């Protein structure tokens, strides 16, 4: 009994002990569980309250997609509202992979039964397809013809995910005309992307495929482009649009009016014909560029949708370099065209007067040197004053003047005439030309300066290099007696929505001041003599016109001629023949146009270039000078 009671006692104790152990363990476990719940709540608090903003942003960026809506590029018109660049609809055949129900190969082979597909188009499709998301359409064939559209629209119901898409394509109705001024748009390439990133305007190009590559299209890209619009849509995880939330319409690009007169441009292009060269014409009272011709030219429409390799190679390998914008990037020795400016420098510095004379015997020698600097006229011009020196383009007069003046005072003075310094035109990529200075020679050739080079610099040779644009500006400054304007091609900007015009104000250059203003007239008289004087180098063009032209011819040597040798046109390779220049303005007393004609290896400024300049001047003076109508009232502008 005592044993059993003891056993029971022990078991009761054991049970009580177990009870308390279990209670403790339960309490321990409850505490642990409560701590764990605390842990979960802490994490929730951290995520939901502390990091709430971060995750809200992430959540929105998950579901909200901005679909960029590209703006329409602005049109380009000439000064009279003639369309130079516009957008025309074109139709592409696209495949959206997400919506297709058959393998791509099968789809392509089906399409081939309806319309021809080149190997090139298929490879191009595959290349773009690889880098495009499933839900985006990829073009298979671009620029469908009417006939192809008909065949396809009848048959496309058989294929899912294949559509005809329309898009606007840049079109240049004037084809080759003014291509160097106008430029063109092309597909954005890696270099453009770099530029865009540098300017930090990637947002503006999200879905734009084209960008201005050259000329006005490039220079006024920011005006023409417009502002990207956005459509805010909610998408699911596979990118399918569930609904539209909001949309900001794109702002179309602004239309621009160029200062060009396409009629004058056509005349200039016609007269230049097959010559390799340039013609540029200004309205001197504003600095507006009326014509901007560089030959040979090319068709900008080829570039809009990617030029073919053959076409590109043909252009690129052409020895006449059609891509070179000769007006503002071609650098040539200016020759005698800059004599009026050098004469002004001599007058201003008191080295010559309008009446002082120099004896010209056909050659010039530096003191203590036997080297003969020859005049273009073997026997010389006799005694020449300022007027005759310009009219006959006497070289000896300017050899002497340059030597007396010294190279640096001369180049410094001519810098005011945009010779050796850029004109500041509003097109990108202008060349500054070269001033023949000892510093330039040292830098480029690491050679010392010789006096002989100062002498030849006096007739626009030596190291002088200038663009036709610079020569025209130098002439304009004389025509305007020092008060000219920076040449520009942007005349006005028009908002296509509000039809509001904003005209570009001409920007005056730093005026060139001459101590005796009558010197301007002395030089202009000389230039009038070139055309209208009895001995003028370009006297042949002075007939049959009711107004006076003031001009200056230039025949710039490309290859120096040995002592005592004679320039023989036929003995020289074409690329070594002289460049022909003629720069002129009219009417001489109240100029309304300044023209410079440059013909590469054209031989004779007065013989070849001058008649072309007269054609252009005459077309302007007699036909196009009076504006037909102001652009704001132009009906076609809205097209």
């Amino acid at each position, binding site marked *: 009994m005592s044993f059993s009671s003891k056993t029971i006692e022990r*078991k009761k104790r054991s049970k009580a002990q177990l009870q308390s152990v279990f209670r403790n363990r339960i309490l321990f*476990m409850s505490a642990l569980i409560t701590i764990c*719940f605390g842990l979960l709540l802490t994490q*929730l608090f951290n*995520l939901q*309250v502390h990091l709430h903003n971060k995750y809200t942003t992430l959540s*929105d960026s998950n579901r909200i997609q901005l679909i960029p809506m590209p703006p329409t590029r602005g049109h380009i018109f000439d000064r009279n509202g003639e369309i130079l660049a516009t957008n025309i609809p074109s139709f592409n055949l696209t495949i959206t992979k997400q919506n297709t129900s058959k393998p791509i190969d099968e789809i392509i082979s089906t399409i081939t039964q309806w319309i021809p597909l080149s190997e090139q188009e298929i490879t191009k499709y595959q290349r773009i397809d690889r880098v495009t998301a499933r839900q985006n359409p990829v073009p298979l064939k671009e620029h469908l013809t009417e006939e192809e559209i008909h065949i396809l629209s009848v048959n496309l119901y058989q294929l899912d995910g294949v559509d005809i898409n329309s898009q606007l394509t840049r079109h240049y109705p004037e084809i080759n005309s003014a291509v160097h001024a106008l430029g063109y748009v092309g597909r954005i390439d890696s270099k453009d992307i770099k530029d865009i990133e540098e300017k930090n305007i990637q947002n503006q190009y999200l879905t734009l495929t084209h960008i201005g590559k050259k000329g006005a299209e490039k220079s006024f890209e920011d005006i023409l482009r417009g502002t990207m619009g956005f459509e805010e849509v909610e998408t699911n995880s596979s990118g399918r649009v569930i609904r539209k939330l909001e949309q900001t319409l794109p702002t179309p690009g602004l239309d621009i009016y160029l200062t060009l007169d396409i009629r004058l441009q056509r005349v200039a292009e016609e007269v230049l014909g097959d010559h390799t060269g340039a013609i540029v014409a200004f309205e001197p009272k504003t600095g507006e560029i009326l014509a901007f011709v560089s030959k040979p030219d090319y068709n900008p429409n080829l570039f809009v949708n990617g030029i073919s390799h053959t076409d590109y190679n043909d252009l690129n390998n052409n020895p006449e370099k059609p891509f070179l914008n000769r007006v503002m990037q071609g650098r040539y020795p200016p020759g005698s065209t800059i004599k009026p400016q050098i004469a002004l420098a001599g007058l201003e510095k008191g080295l010559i007067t309008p009446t002082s004379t120099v004896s010209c015997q056909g050659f010039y020698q530096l003191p203590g040197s036997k080297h003969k600097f020859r005049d273009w006229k073997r026997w010389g011009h006799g005694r020449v004053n300022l007027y005759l020196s310009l009219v006959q383009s006497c070289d000896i007069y300017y050899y002497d003047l340059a030597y007396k003046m010294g190279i640096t005072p001369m180049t410094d003075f001519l810098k005011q005439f945009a010779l050796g310094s850029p004109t500041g035109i509003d097109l990108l990529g202008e060349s500054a030309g070269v001033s023949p200075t000892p510093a330039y020679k040292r830098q480029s050739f690491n050679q010392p300066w010789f006096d002989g080079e100062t002498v030849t610099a006096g007739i626009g040779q030596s190291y002088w290099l200038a663009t036709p644009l610079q020569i025209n500006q130098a002439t304009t400054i004389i025509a305007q007696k020092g008060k000219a304007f920076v040449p520009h091609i942007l005349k006005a900007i028009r908002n296509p929505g509000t039809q509001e015009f904003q005209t570009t104000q001409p920007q005056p250059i730093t005026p060139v001041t001459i101590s005796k203003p009558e010197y301007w007239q002395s030089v202009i008289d000389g230039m009038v003599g070139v055309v209208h004087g009895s001995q003028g180098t370009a006297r042949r063009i002075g007939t049959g016109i009711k107004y006076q032209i003031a001009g200056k011819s230039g025949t710039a040597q490309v290859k120096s001629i040995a002592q005592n040798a004679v320039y023989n046109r036929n003995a020289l390779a074409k690329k070594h023949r002289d460049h022909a220049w003629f720069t002129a303005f009219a009417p001489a007393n109240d100029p309304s146009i300044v023209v410079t004609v440059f013909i590469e290896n054209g031989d004779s400024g007065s013989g070849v270039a001058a008649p072309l300049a007269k054609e252009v001047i005459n077309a302007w003076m007699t036909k196009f000078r009076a504006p037909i109508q102001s652009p704001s009232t132009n009906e076609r502008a809205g097209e």
Partner: protein
Amino acid sequence: MSFYDPSQSVRPKGLLSLFHLDTTLFLLLLSVCACGLTILYSASGGNLEVVQAQAVRMGIGIFAMLIIAFTPPYIIKSLTPYFFGISIISLILIFFVGVEVNGSHRWLDLKIIRFQPSELMKLAAPMMVAYYLSTRNLPPSFLVLITSLLITVIPFALVYHQPDLGTALLILFACITAIFFSGLKWRYIIFTAICVAIALPIIWEFGLQDYQKGRVLTLLNPESDPLGKGYQIIQSKIAIGSGGMYGKGWLNSTQASLKFLPESSTDFIYAITAEEFGFVGITVLLSLYWLIILRCFYLVNRSQNPFNKLIGGSITACFFFYIFVNAGMVSGLLPIVGVPLPFISYGGTSIVTLFLSFGIIMSIFAHPEPKKEKEYTT
């Protein structure tokens, strides 16, 4: 030093005691189920069929719970070895006739019903351990401990080989808590903890499949693989974080409706809850869970019977383990382990198993032992 406790002799009280249910616990469970159906409706994208199917399963579960609740604990105890045996056999059978889903053999097709034996094992294994321990003197001796561990390891190994790491870990946890409640000496616990700490690197090197390693690595740095392994964690954290203090509102989850978060109605439903109801809503849900756990512990603690105590404690701890692993995984505290959120996640077997386990708790509540009960002397 009296072990007289008035509560032990009191008959079950409460509104639902007639149905052998504890009113408080039952109402708490019903609230969670109601929350579950509400959230599921939203997480499934407004699919009423899914919600109905889930409701039907809950009905079946509650019915099963009632049956278990009416069964006295000693009968449950006496049936335990058979239950365990059947579960082990079906687990072994799986290797021969199992249906392969997603590369693992988990399902057994019985023509009439398809079920996962591992789901049964989550209940059978801790019951067997509790059964074994309750027939021995407690606290367990070393030998008893080894035997209990053996009972644990066999089902664990079988499930782990399916492979189903999540369930295997649950079984392991359930058995170990049963051993813990039996009064396992602290020195053993500390010793095991040290052993585990040493063994972890070794298991990492040799014991884990690549996909499991990936899950752990992804957890440590989900951003390293945002479109691959880290995608789910990142998306679920976005869902939780974007919910904020008060949530986006019911049916307004963008992460689920736009399908950014995969498995949003099953394993990741916790994230949707947090997204739609915010910190406040999820705190309410976690509080319900916490109250359920505390109520269960209270009920279990009143029981005198060691088997009841052990299995009740283990079930409750397991219930917590489910919640913690799921919530921890979804909120980025733990690696991704396929564990559903109890009563909320969509899924058949798990809901029924849960109600079965709560049936045992109810049964313990409904059948207080008479004072003279001498079960412990066996």
